[in-house]
């Protein structure tokens, strides 16, 4: 099983990455033979911007996109910026094909300075991944600064990780097999479709 972790933290070390690692470890404990790959968006920031200006991804970004779209499960973690996911986080998912995450189990998580933004999980991240047709686990994990010194975060991590692990094991058979070939509608069908509606 391939678990890919997308972290949009910007500082080094970052609490976003710390939360991502705790989530990944918790999923790992529940899944046999899981291979974890972490995608740090900070390292891809320039290539993501250039993807917008050029229309194609650079080599490191292409590799990250391949990893994310080929994953059996995703953990995505963003810091809260201006009451939402960070622009970098959104930009990464903007350059991924809109159907590439269809059916992929996703655990959403976010970090922030205060607990006041915790609804960002359900007001911003969940709709984004619903649009991408991913399967978002019921429990999202939000960690404010204060949570790192309080009881409760562990429990939420464990519950969310259990949900993701369950979906990864259960949905792996349902996810469409990745196909790298370009697909075509036979031309006669394309012509016939126009005649039928014309």
């Amino acid at each position, binding site marked *: 099983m391939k678990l890919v972790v997308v972290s949009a933290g910007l500082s080094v070390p970052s609490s976003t990455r710390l939360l991502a690692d705790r989530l990944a470890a918790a999923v790992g404990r529940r899944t046999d033979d899981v291979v974890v790959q972490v995608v740090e968006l900070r390292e891809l920031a320039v290539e993501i911007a*250039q993807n917008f200006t*050029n229309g*194609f991804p*650079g080599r490191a970004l292409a590799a990250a996109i391949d990893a994310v779209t080929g994953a059996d499960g995703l953990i995505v973690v963003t810091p809260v910026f201006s009451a939402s996911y960070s622009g970098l986080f959104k930009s990464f998912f903007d350059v991924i094909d809109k159907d590439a995450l269809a059916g992929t189990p996703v655990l959403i998580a976010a970090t922030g300075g205060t607990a006041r933004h915790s609804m960002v999980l359900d007001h911003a991240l969940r709709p984004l991944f619903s649009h991408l047709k991913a399967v978002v686990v019921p429990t999202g994990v939000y960690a404010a600064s204060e949570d790192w010194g309080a009881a409760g975060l562990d429990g939420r991590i464990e519950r969310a990780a259990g949900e993701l692990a369950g979906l990864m094991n259960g949905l792996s058979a349902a996810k469409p097999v990745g196909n790298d070939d*370009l*697909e075509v*509608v036979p*031309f006669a069908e394309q012509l016939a479709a126009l005649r039928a509606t*014309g």
Partner: protein
Amino acid sequence: MQFGIFSVGDVTPDPTTGRTPTERERIKAMVAIALKAEEVGLDVFATGEHHNPPFVPSSPTTMLGYVAARTEKLILSTSTTLITTNDPVKIAEDFAMLQHLADGRVDLMMGRGNTGPVYPWFGQDIRQGINLAVENYALLRRLWREDVVDWEGKFRTPLQGFTSTPRPLDGVPPFVWHGSIRSPEIAEQAAYYGDGFFHNNIFWPADHTKRMVDLYRQRYAHYGHGTAEQAVVGLGGHVFMRRNSQDAVREFRPYFDVAPVYGHGPSLEEFTDQTPLTVGSPQQVIEKTLAFRDYAGDYQRQLFLIDHAGLPLKTVLEQLDMLGEEVVPVLRKEFAAGRPADVPEAPTHQSLLAAAKKETVA
């Protein structure tokens, strides 16, 4: 193999002087570039078609007709003709007229256009882009091949007893290329008809171009026009040359850095590493262009983009001198070497006419 140039027709300020050419200057420059292409021994000049500033070529057959009158051998083509928003009846008429005036030195490349508002400006819906390309082209083919056409479709008013005039020269319609960067449907369309497929690879990594060309080749064979290796493929190229590569980089960098489309993005070095752009010596251009064959197979037409981003006319004409004197003669020789005998050249009016006569006799 055919070598030529294709122009977008952009009016762009020269970033080194800040001066923007007038539309008249740019139009005349495009003509001068086309005439120079013939003078230095290139085979093809293709003009873009655009209907918004900062571009001038809204009326390709007017320009190509003028160039036809002043050239002898040059093949006049487009890059691209908007099959989505032009009336296919007008395309049939305009290009048949050009064929007669140019004694058959005409082909054209179909494209959908990538400027959203052009569709509504011409009464169309961009969401129907592929369907417009499919239906309009199907009609265009009939207009060139049938003297009297009765037709009804989804997008234009029906035709009853319509004859497109003038009829194609010698009864042979112009050869058609289909240009597409990422739509498999268009590669499929080109394959279905046995037409040419042009991949404008200039801003794209090689693996993407390879996938699109491979798809076209497989489908060309599927439809029984020949083997996959015999499919008719064209590619773009994007070069700036000086005798010493350092001089080329130094002179081109200010144009690259602010160029439309790719400016303000990756560095010149990153871009030349990942795309077909070559900024350097004629030898470097030769090496990079020859490498296209490694992933696209033996192909039929190579068009270079040399006149964009505000480069002055004098500089562009110098590029053409180098292409004609140093680059293309070597490319002709090297591409011919190792090319299987059964891989055809790009069709021309003469070759299509000969094939039609042979078919009539048979």
